[in-house]
């Protein structure tokens, strides 16, 4: 890994790949509340941490393509939570950010120059913040012609604090795809770490799934079942002993 730009990224919402309709990530923020607890006997501030929050604001272009265009995906402002996955790069193992959030705005702006853009804000709603993990799919989004596994991501060592997986099921041609994340100590024998409840059928779908306990050194994305041409993205955030919201 080296220093990188913000080029060649991807953004998924609710299983829809709207990377081409989103022009900017205006803000991806995880503020932490702080309480001032400075004692009379201190000459410098003492603070303790409060609750954390997460907001994701992005700017999109208006694409009126039915179902998968940005207007169809974003304008419905559903009352249920939305699951988003933002890939900072599309190489296997690149950082990604996942969040389960409520969409609180779909703001259309049409200035005098005739341009047309929307701004969307997501605010975390599931008791967790933004989860930074790693992209498990080569290219950021891939097509599995039938059930198979992606190349693994090597995290150098196993951990014992669980984790969270993010799935974006974009589409499939026929059948139903199952999705899982597998882990291994040796990159040859693989055990299922978590299975997503999402059935990869005709509709786009997204899911965040957590797991507790040991996560071995190697992790990979896997599809199962009988289907053709399942298109998906997947990320995994490995838990840490210092997590504010443990798994």
């Amino acid at each position: 890994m080296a220093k990188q730009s913000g080029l060649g990224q991807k953004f998924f919402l609710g299983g829809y790949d709207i990377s081409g309709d989103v022009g900017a990530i205006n803000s991806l923020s995880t503020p932490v509340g702080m309480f001032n607890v400075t004692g009379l006997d201190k000459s410098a501030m003492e603070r303790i941490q409060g609750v954390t929050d997460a907001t994701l604001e992005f700017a999109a272009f208006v694409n009126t393509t039915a179902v998968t265009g940005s207007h169809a995906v974003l304008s419905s402002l559903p009352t249920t939570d939305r699951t988003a996955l933002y890939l900072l790069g599309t190489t296997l193992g690149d950082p990604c950010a996942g969040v389960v959030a409520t969409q609180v705005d779909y703001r259309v702006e049409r200035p005098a120059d005739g341009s047309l853009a929307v701004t969307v804000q997501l605010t975390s709603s599931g008791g967790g913040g933004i989860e930074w993990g790693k992209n498990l799919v080569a290219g950021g989004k891939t097509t599995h012609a039938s059930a198979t596994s992606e190349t693994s991501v090597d995290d150098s060592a196993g951990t014992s604090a669980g984790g969270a997986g993010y799935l974006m099921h974009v589409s499939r041609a026929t059948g139903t795809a199952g999705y899982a994340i597998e882990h291994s100590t040796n990159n040859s024998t693989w055990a299922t770490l978590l299975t997503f409840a999402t059935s990869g059928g005709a509709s786009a779908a997204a899911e965040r799934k957590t797991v507790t306990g040991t996560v071995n050194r190697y992790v990979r994305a896997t599809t199962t079942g009988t289907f053709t041409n399942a298109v998906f993205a997947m990320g995994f955030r490995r838990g840490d002993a210092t997590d504010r919201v443990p798994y």
Partner: protein
Amino acid sequence: MPAARKPVSGSYRVADRGLDSTMRMLTNASGKEWFVGDAVDPNDLAPGDLDWLLEAGVIEKVGD
């Protein structure tokens, strides 16, 4: 020539961890797959696999 691997004894099976039982729970380097409840011959696994798979609850011992 590498030394022959000593056979591992015991009966094991894939544990039910509450995951989607239609999905495979374990696969080895040769591509052999196991599902929930399947018997696992430890000699099909790589050296050292038995320990972490038992520790992770992926398989359980059902006999000596």
